[in-house]
């Protein structure tokens, strides 16, 4: 392990360490980096593998030190810039301690170095959760399927050809192939990757949408009912190329499952061919099926004999209504929404959405457009416009901060709040921003205290900008989640956030506020022409 003395650089000192052939995953490294950065006297720190991306980042930060020449993606790099030698040495010691601790947490038992070995050692394991970098992901998933195991493939950047081939293999073997880009599932009550702790029950969910699945399962729980299985299939399953292969198989499995009485399907609107295949396969289904294709024509779904819904909350309530035979009211009824907005005035004309959930971002755009507003986004829904500059909002801008645009070299915003906090400050400082919408998604996999992190960031941004844009949060989670719904709600409310128990109720209230008499009456600082059509 080469080690170099600290190099003086103006008022700060820098030092780099290279650990040859030592590998940690990206989330672990992000957590170690954050721990090091939080230490007093540390100006900048990077703990990462020697990938091209990390080397470029180090160069941009002025932290590419001579000892990093010739490193490979299998070498671990630690780079720290600190105010003095003492802070520098402490930071390096913290990095080492954190990495060692994480290795110790992994247990003292033998950890197999390959999936093949793990499969041999654990013949009783039926599920393989794959989250290696995209270019290796399909290979690992294939090994698992060939060994007769169900797969949840969290990784993205898997080609659609590979996806098709993996799903065909899974179908031929009667196995689950959840993903790629499948962020959530609940199998026999076990939360996999990002998932919430919900009651067990008789509603089965199949979703091509991660946060869609989380929201629907949490709301079913909120209504007092439970989930038999919640199966993710990956966002492209109902595309023309994949043809709904896994959605169809999962729904068929739930139709045969004695514990499932009602089935819910959530997805973006399918390709026409995929929808046709799905409806053909489900014709004459013996169990009621609720379908929410976000933004799709409801009539066509109803004509095909299915129950449908206009948002994620209604999807959950429809499923519960089938079980009880009783109507389920809206979580935040319209009169209450009016009450919430009654005494609030917007300090700027536009809404800004800072989402960690892709489905929420999509649903927000569609609902705002339905209400007659022009919308911009980095992931524009049909009818919305693409933001030209990712770093600058214009008009009503609704961002998916979990998209590749914002996550390159960073962890997802459900784990790491840093990018969203940075953007929150930008929006606070913008005189055009009147209302900020955001989500906090609880459950396993998510940040242990996102509510607290956002609350602290809001207070800091408010003080720095001396502005008071309104803040609405959709809190997606349950009381049984590790973070606790009520605890998180309280923390956010104390920071002046209006917290909603569903995304739909937040959007109903937001559109009421933007359209009603309390809407901003002044002139926009920029883009005065942008807004309601």
């Amino acid at each position, binding site marked *: 392990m080469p080690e170099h003395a600290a190099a003086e650089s103006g008022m700060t000192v820098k030092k780099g360490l290279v650990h040859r052939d030592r590998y940690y995953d990206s989330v672990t490294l992000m957590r170690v980096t954050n721990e090091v950065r939080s230490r007093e006297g540390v100006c900048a720190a990077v703990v990462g593998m020697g990938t091209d991306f990390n080397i470029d980042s180090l160069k941009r930060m002025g932290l590419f030190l001579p000892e990093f020449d010739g490193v490979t993606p*299998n070498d671990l790099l630690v780079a720290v810039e600190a105010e003095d030698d003492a802070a520098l040495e402490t930071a390096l010691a913290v990095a080492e301690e954190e990495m060692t601790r994480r290795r110790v947490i992994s247990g003292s038992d033998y950890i197999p170095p390959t999936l093949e070995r793990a499969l041999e050692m654990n013949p009783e394991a039926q599920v393989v959760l794959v989250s290696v970098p995209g270019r290796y992901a399909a290979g690992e998933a294939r090994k698992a399927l060939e060994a007769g195991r169900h797969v949840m493939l*969290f990784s993205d950047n898997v080609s659609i050809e590979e996806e098709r081939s993996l799903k065909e293999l899974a179908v031929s073997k009667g196995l*689950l192939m959840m993903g790629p880009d499948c962020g959530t599932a609940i199998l026999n009550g076990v939360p996999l990757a990002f998932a919430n702790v919900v009651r067990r029950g008789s509603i089965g969910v199949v979703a091509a949408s991660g946060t869609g699945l989380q929201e629907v399962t949490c709301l079913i729980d909120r209504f007092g009912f439970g989930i038999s299985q919640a199966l993710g299939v990956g966002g492209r399953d109902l595309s023309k190329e994949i043809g709904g292969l896994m959605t169809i198989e999962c729904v*068929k499995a739930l139709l*045969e499952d004695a514990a499932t009485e009602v089935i819910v399907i959530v997805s973006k609107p399918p390709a026409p061919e995929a929808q046709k295949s799905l409806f053909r396969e489900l014709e004459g289904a013996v169990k009621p099926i609720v379908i929410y294709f976000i933004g799709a024509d409801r009539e066509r779904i109803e004509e095909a004999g299915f129950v449908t819904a206009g948002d994620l909350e209604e999807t959950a309530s429809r499923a519960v209504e089938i079980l009880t035979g009783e109507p389920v009211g809206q979580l935040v009824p319209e009169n209450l929404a009016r009450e919430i907005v009654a005494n609030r005035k917007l300090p700027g004309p536009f809404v800004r959405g800072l989402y960690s959930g892709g489905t929420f971002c999509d649903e927000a755009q569609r609902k705002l457009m339905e209400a007659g507003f022009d919308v911009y986004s980095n992931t524009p829904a049909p009818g919305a416009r693409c933001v030209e500059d990712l770093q600058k909002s214009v008009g009503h801008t609704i961002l998916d901060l979990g998209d590749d645009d914002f996550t390159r070299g960073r962890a997802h915003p459900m784990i790491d709040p840093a990018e969203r906090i940075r953007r929150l400050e930008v929006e606070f400082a913008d005189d055009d921003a009147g209302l900020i919408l955001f989500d906090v998604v609880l459950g396993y996999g998510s940040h242990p205290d996102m509510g607290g992190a956002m609350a602290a960031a809001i207070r800091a941004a408010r003080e720095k900008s001396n502005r008071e844009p309104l803040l609405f949060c959709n809190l997606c989670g349950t009381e049984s989640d590790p973070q606790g719904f009520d605890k998180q709600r309280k923390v956010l409310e104390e920071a002046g956030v209006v917290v909603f128990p569903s995304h739909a109720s937040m959007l109903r209230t937001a559109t009421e506020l933007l359209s009603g008499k309390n809407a901003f009456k002044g002139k926009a600082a920029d883009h005065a022409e942008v807004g309601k059509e």
Partner: protein
Amino acid sequence: MSGMREIFGKEVVVINVGLDLFAEELEKATVPVQRVAWRPPAQGKKKVQDLLARIKKKKGKE
């Protein structure tokens, strides 16, 4: 009949390959999980990986 539903109702045992966070979370939820000390093959070098993939493919055809 779908073979898929054979897993329904059984105790889930997981092998986690990739982000350690997910294994930690499963352990917190007292779910049996086997970690894999995965690392990129061929020291993460793309050229070597491509070469290995070609050899494997060729072997498969033979």
